[in-house]
C-alpha cells in the first residue's frame, strides 16, 4: 500500500529476477556440455611403465587392490592406485568425466553392461580401443555373447568382460520341505505359481519379493530375467524396441499372476528391504544372479544347510533356464596418457585365470573368463548350500548358447519406462499388454527408434 512510484521499476526487477532464476537452471543443463568431442587426446605410453588410477566399487575394488602386489611383481614400474568410488556414484562420476572430454577420469574404469553402450555411443573416443593394444587375442576366451557386448561392431574393442552373472533361483530348502514341495521339480514359472500357493498356505512365506514402487532402478531385474530366459530383451539386435513383444507381455503377465495370487512381498526401498526380507525369511525364493550366493552366506550365516540353488524355471515348457543376465567390464579411458600400462593391468586381472580364481574365492564374483573354471574352487561342494556344487550349476548356464542382449544407448530410458509399467501393474493392477504397449510407444517417440511387436 502506498508504495507509489517505485513500484513499476521494482516489479520489472523482480520479474527479471524470476526469469533469471529460471534461466539459471537452463544454464545448469547447458554447462554439462555436449559429448561430441569426449575423450581422445590420450596416448599409449609404455606398456610396463607409468602411474595409473583404477575406478571400481566396494567388493571388486577391494579385490583389485589385493591383486596389485602380484601385478607389481610382473610390472614393477607401473604404480597402481585403486579408488573405491562406490556404486551407483561411479556412474555419475564417469558420466561427468566423459562429458568434460575425459578430464579427471581414471585410466581404468569398471563399467556395467547397462552403462557401457551408452558411454560408447554418446561419448565417442571416451573409451580407448583395446584392439590395437592386444585385446583381440582374447576374443574367444570369454563366455558366449560377451564379446559382442564389448565389441558390438566387431571393430572397436571398448572393454574386456570381467564378471558374467547368470540368473539363479536361490531358495530356502527347509521351507520347501515343510510345505511338501519339490523345488527341483518345478519346470516352468507357471509350476512355480502352483508351488508358491502351497508354500504360502503351509509356511506363510511369500514366493518372491519385488520392489513394487520401483524405488530403485533395478526393480525390473526379475522382468528382465524373464525376457532373457526367452532369448529377448528391450531391443532387438537391430536396435528396434521390443517392449510390446509377446515375450514381454508373457513376462509381465506372469508377474501380475504372481502378485494377484498374493505370492509377492513388497521390497519397497530396494536393497535394504531385500536384506531385511532375506534375514526375516519373508520370501522363500530370491531369483537373483550368481553373485547373490555370496550375499546370502554373508547375511544369514546361521542358515547354513537351509539354502539351495538351482537355475530359474523356464518361462515356457521346454524353454531355456539359462540366461546371462548381466556382466561388468574393465575399460581404458580414451583420455588416459598411459593406455598401454592400463591395458597391462586390465589384461593381468581379466585374462589370467589365477586372478579370477582369487576374486571368485574371496568375493564370489563369477568370471566371464572360461579358462578360470578349470580351477577346483568351481567344482567343490558348498557346505552352506547343502552340499551342492553351485559353481558347476552356474557354469552350465554360462556355457549354454544364448544371444548377446542389445542394451543400446537408450537402455536407461527404456528401463525407466519398464519400471514405471511394472509399478502400474503391481500397485494399480494395470493390464500388462496395455502398459507395455504404452511404454514401447513412448520410448519410440523419445528415441526415434521403431517399435516392433
Amino acid at each position, binding site marked *: 500500500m502506498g508504495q507509489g512510484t517505485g513500484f513499476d521499476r521494482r516489479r520489472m526487477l523482480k520479474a527479471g529476477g524470476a526469469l533469471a532464476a529460471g534461466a539459471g537452471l537452463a544454464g545448469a543443463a547447458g554447462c554439462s556440455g555436449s559429448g561430441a568431442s569426449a575423450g581422445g587426446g590420450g596416448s599409449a605410453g609404455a606398456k610396463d611403465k607409468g602411474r595409473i588410477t583404477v575406478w571400481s566399487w566396494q567388493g571388486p575394488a577391494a579385490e583389485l587392490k589385493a591383486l596389485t602386489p602380484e601385478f607389481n611383481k610382473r610390472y614393477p614400474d607401473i604404480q597402481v592406485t585403486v579408488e573405491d568410488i562406490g556404486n551407483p556414484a561411479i556412474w555419475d562420476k564417469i558420466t561427468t568425466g566423459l562429458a568434460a572430454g575425459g578430464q579427471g577420469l581414471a585410466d581404468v574404469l569398471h563399467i556395467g553392461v547397462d552403462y557401457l553402450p551408452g558411454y560408447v555411443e*554418446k561419448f565417442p573416443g571416451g573409451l580407448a580401443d583395446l584392439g590395437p593394444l592386444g585385446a583381440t587375442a582374447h576374443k574367444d576366451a570369454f563366455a558366449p555373447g560377451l564379446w559382442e557386448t564389448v565389441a558390438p561392431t566387431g571393430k572397436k574393442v571398448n572393454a574386456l568382460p570381467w564378471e558374467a552373472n547368470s540368473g539363479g533361483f536361490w531358495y530356502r530348502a527347509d521351507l520347501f520341505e515343510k510345505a511338501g514341495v519339490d523345488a527341483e521339480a518345478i519346470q516352468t514359472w507357471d509350476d512355480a505359481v502352483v508351488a508358491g500357493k502351497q508354500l504360502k498356505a503351509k509356511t506363510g512365506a511369500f514366493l518372491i519379493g519385488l520392489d513394487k514402487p520401483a524405488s530403485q532402478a533395478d526393480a525390473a531385474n526379475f522382468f528382465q530375467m524373464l525376457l532373457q530366459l526367452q532369448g529377448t530383451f528391450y531391443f532387438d539386435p537391430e536396435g528396434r524396441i521390443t517392449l510390446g513383444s509377446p515375450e514381454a507381455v508373457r513376462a509381465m503377465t506372469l508377474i501380475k499372476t504372481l502378485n494377484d495370487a498374493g505370492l509377492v512381498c513388497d521390497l519397497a526401498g530396494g536393497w535394504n528391504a531385500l536384506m531385511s526380507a532375506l534375514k526375516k525369511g519373508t520370501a522363500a525364493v530370491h531369483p537373483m544372479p550368481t553373485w547373490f550366493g555370496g550375499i546370502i552366506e554373508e547375511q544369514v550365516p546361521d542358515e547354513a544347510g537351509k539354502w539351495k540353488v538351482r537355475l530359474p524355471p523356464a518361462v515356457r515348457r521346454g524353454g531355456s533356464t539359462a540366461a546371462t543376465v548381466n556382466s561388468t567390464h574393465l575399460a581404458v579411458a580414451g583420455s588416459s596418457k598411459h593406455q598401454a600400462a592400463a591395458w597391462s593391468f586390465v589384461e593381468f586381472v581379466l585374462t589370467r585365470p589365477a586372478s579370477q580364481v582369487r576374486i571368485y574365492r574371496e568375493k564370489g564374483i563369477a568370471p566371464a573368463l572360461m579358462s578360470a573354471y578349470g580351477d577346483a574352487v568351481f567344482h567343490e561342494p558348498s557346505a552352506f548350500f547343502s552340499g551342492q556344487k553351485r559353481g558347476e550349476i552356474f557354469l552350465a548356464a554360462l556355457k549354454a548358447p544364448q544371444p548377446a542382449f542389445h542394451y543400446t544407448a537408450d537402455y536407461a530410458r527404456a528401463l525407466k519406462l519398464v519400471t514405471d509399467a511394472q509399478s502400474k501393474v503391481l500397485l494399480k493392477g494395470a493390464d500388462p499388454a496395455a502398459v507395455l504397449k504404452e511404454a514401447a510407444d513412448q520410448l519410440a517417440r523419445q528415441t526415434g527408434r521403431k517399435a516392433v511387436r
Partner: protein
Amino acid sequence: MTAATPAGPAAPAAPRAARPPAAPVRPAAARRRARRRPAPYLFVLPALLLFGAFKLYPIGSSFVLSLHRTEGGTQTFIGAGNYERLLDDPLFWTALKNTAVILAVQVPVMLALATGLAVALNSRLLYGRSVFRLGFFLPMVTGLVAYGIVFSVLLNKDYGLANWLLARVGAGPVPWLTHPLWAQISLGLALTWHYTGYNAVILLARLQSVPAELYDAAAVDGAGGWRTFLHVTLPGLRPVLLLTAVLSTIGTLQLFDEPYVLTGGGPDNATLTIGVYLYQNAFKYFDFGYASAIAYALAVLIGILGLIQFRVLGEKE
C-alpha cells in the same frame, strides 16, 4: 545497474572538489569525460567476466544445445525438434501436473501457515519470542539433501519413526513414500516443514513495519481481532505476500533435491518434478539437448507465472 552510474552527476563530483569551485562544467562534457574513464569498467570487469563465463555462456550454450540432437556422438541441428518432442512427452506433462498440484495445494497452505505464524510470533502476548522465531527458522538452515535423507528415514515404512508412533496409537503402517498419493503428501509435508519458518520470518519483518497508528485507529473504530487482521494486517503484508508467493513459485518449479532424495520421482512418477526429469534426461540418458529444452521451457514458464502473480497480487495502479 552499476554500469549506468559513471554517467550520473555524482561520479565526477569527488575529483572536482579539489578544484576551484568557480569553473562549472557543462553536464554533457562531464558525461563524455566520465565515459572515457576506464576505472569503473575495470572495477566491474571481474564480476562481469565471472558472470559471463559461468552464467551467460552456459545459458547461451544451453540454448544452442536445445536446438541439437546428439546421435552417435555428432550434434545434429534439429531446430525446434526438442521442443516439439516436449509437447508430445507424457512424462513432461506428468512433471508439470505434479508441480501444478504442489503449487495449488502446498504453497497456499504453507503461506497461510506462515502468515499465521508471523502474526503469532509478532504477538506481545508471546513469551520468549526470539526462541520461537529461531526455532521456526532453523529448518531453513539444514541442507536440502540432509533433511531429505532425514525425512526418508523418518517416513520409512518398516522402521521409520512416523510409523512407529502411529503403531503406538494403533494406526496401521502408512506407505509414506511407496504409494503414489502418500508420496505426494510426504513431499508436501517435507517442503512445508522446511520453508514455512523462512516465509514466516520474511512476513514478520514486514509486519513489524506496519504503522502502529493503523492498529490504534482500528481499535478506536471498534474493530475486533479478526477485522483488524483482515483490514490492517493483510493489506500491510500484501507486497511481502507477493514476494513470498513468487519465491515459492520459483522454488516449486525448480524443485529437485527433495523429490530426488525422498522418492527419486516415483512411485510411478507421482513425485516427478521438472527438475528431476531434467536431471534424468541429462545425466541418466545423456540427452543434453532435450534436457536443455526442458530447462528453457521451465524458464519461460517461471517468467509467465511470475508476471501473472504480479498482475493478480500486485498493487493496482
